[in-house]
């Protein structure tokens, strides 16, 4: 092989790897990302069933019902509420009236089937998406806002 051919082989291989990486990333960005929604977004019906979503809001007071290892609860942003079911162990800080993020899909019956539920890491922390959504819907309380910064 000549000097030039060697160079070209290297550059060709590099280009190929780069193209593969770009293709993979573009395809995955199109298909594998999860959108964040609020109960109000869901109520507007703009979301098609079967799409992976992160649903954020507060756990509605008095809505948590347990049935063996399955939990039913409602997530609310004050204006609207969505029924959620989840089978598994809830995080330590999952509480009625507190912020939560459920990840999963909306079933055909409108019930959100979560495969993971996140709560805050300690009593002062609220997921940022939830805080923003609550601010938007006007249910943000200043007391909570002051407590957010320190999360440790």
């Amino acid at each position, binding site marked *: 092989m000549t000097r030039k051919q060697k160079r070209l082989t290297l550059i060709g291989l590099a280009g190929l790897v780069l193209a593969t990486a770009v293709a993979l990333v573009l395809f995955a960005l199109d298909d594998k990302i999860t959108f964040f929604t609020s109960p109000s977004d869901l109520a507007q019906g703009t979301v098609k069933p079967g799409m992976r979503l992160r649903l954020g809001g507060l756990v509605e007071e008095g809505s948590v019902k347990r049935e063996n290892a399955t939990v039913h609860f409602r997530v609310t942003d004050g204006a609207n509420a969505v029924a959620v079911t989840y089978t598994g162990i809830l995080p330590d800080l999952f509480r009625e009236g507190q912020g939560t993020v459920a990840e999963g899909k909306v079933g055909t019956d409108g019930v959100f089937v979560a495969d993971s539920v996140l709560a805050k890491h300690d*009593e002062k922390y609220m997921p940022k998406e939830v805080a923003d959504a609550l601010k938007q819907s006007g249910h943000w309380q200043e007391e909570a806002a002051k407590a957010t910064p320190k999360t440790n």
Partner: protein
Amino acid sequence: MIVEVGHYALVLALALALVQSVLPIWGVKAADARLMAVARPVAWGQFGFVAISFAALTWAHVASDFSVANVFENSHSQKPMIYKISGVWGNHEGSMLLWVSILALFGAMVAWFGRNLPKTLLAAVLGVQAWVAVAFYLFVLLTSNPFARILRAPMEGRDLNPILQDPGLAIHPPLLYLGYVGFSIAFSFAVAALIEGRIDAAWARWVRPWTLAAWVFLTLGIAMGSYWAYYELGWGGWWFWDPVENASLMPWLAGTALLHSSIVMEKRDALKVWTILLAILTFSLSLLGTFLVRSGVLTSVHAFATDPARGVFILGILVLFVGGSLTLFAARAGALTKGGLFAPISREGALVFNNLFLTAACAAVFIGTLYPLLLEATTGGKISVGAPFFEMTFGPLMVPLLLVMPIGPFLAWKRGDLLAVAQRLAVVFVVAILGTIATWWATRGGPILAPFGIGLGLWLSLGALAEIAFRIKLFSEPSVAFRRAVGLPRSAWGAMLGHLGVGLLIFGVVAEGAWKVEHVLVMKPGETVQVARFDLTLTEEKTIVGPNYDATVAHFVVREKGREVAVLEPAKRNYRTRKMPTTETAIATFDGFSQLYLAMGESQGGGVAMRIYWKPMVLLIWLGCLVMAIGGAVSLTDRRLRIGAPKPSRVASAALPAAAE
């Protein structure tokens, strides 16, 4: 008083860093040996003052001096001593102080071990190192002062976040920072080389031990963090593709690429410009990691604070150093002499292949981590990029790299013979195929890709062992093999262990992913559940009182074929001060590497929710990382690194035995 001394010492360290950042580089430019000689003693002095500062903060934590805001926020008089100490860096201000302390430590070590470096290079390296230090001293002093006092001292502190009260978390941040900050040395060497406009194979030999050391610590730090998440969070996962995890993975990937490209530079004087760029990128990614974690743009267990001023400050540091060094690179890279050429099928070619895939994988992680931030900043849209994205991008980019990995070390420099390599690896290949078929047969009906994963693990680990076996002529006379084994450079053993570790890691990842068993159920005392080959009986639920928490404990007896093999006590703790519950998992190890994993949920209707996992071969994940890190450490003891670099000479480097990596 001690606290004020600590604060003052930090200011003095900043003053020395300012001196160190100007005079030595001025000396280099003016060719003034006296100015250059300033660098070493000042680097030691800087470290000395930072050490005093760090010790002062530690004292405040140990003595529970709640008049210091930092101690009040993060400590409690009843906290066990180990967490009083680890609490020093279990918060934003303290962890940044640890960051600058480690930076100064590395600077002092370069000053110590760099005695035989060329004077100009040493002065330039320490000067650049001090630029980074000045930026971070200013950050700590101006936005994150750990020594701030509270006017009316409270009687009791707020306690450390309970999930951080764990031995794993006591050592995870220091290890990670030793890794992150360690790459600053490679960065300083790269920028110094660009300033001087001169670079050769000897440069690579000086940089390599520092990169290797940083890489070893980063590997251990990431593995430690992963194991901590596994047993402490109670979710049973070991890697979540969380942005903060990605923030540590990116410098690791770039650092791994740097380790390999610097071999080419050292041995063959090639890939110089690329190696310089990688050194800059690796530390830039470390800075990016610090920014992501410390600025509060991410919400996670690591996001200590969301003070916008801090975020902007770190972003400024990031832009200054990344932008500045890349501009310098663009201006000067063309002036660096290019090295020798090589055939695509050669050791160099294999290492280039390694670099291509590692950097491509790193770029994929980079995009997946930053895209949500970018989207939110530009359109306000909120998305999350999770495991599915990374499995689809990172996974396929790793497979070719792993497939080629055992072949690389067999190839000769300059021009390799693929046929000869194929002959040597034929047996390993056949064993890997047989292993794949056997696994498929034994686990019919299971995940389809898993047997291939086991085959890949065999290919990697046996391939690494085969390389050493051939080099020491294991199957010739024992005395010959022994002599050759002793004579083999330690770097060759290190490379073998590094690659073997990857093989072990793959075994663990594949087995845990494909054949884990998960049960989530509500159990009442007296009930028994069968998981994998075990019968677990919940005998009782009891309450205990700990030093700073109360706990509910479930007592499980584990039986295998009727014989009691383990007692497990998962618990739910409630920390009194923060009124915060945590899950304490209970884990028993079987067959050496497989684990039975119990996490407790909430009590309900006379029973308790339990999550029970059987995780086959899961320990191999972290054992693999440990073996990789040991490989790095063994390589670090190699003679040519230990005794320091000789004067660069083409004849000398050509005469060296064809030592691998």
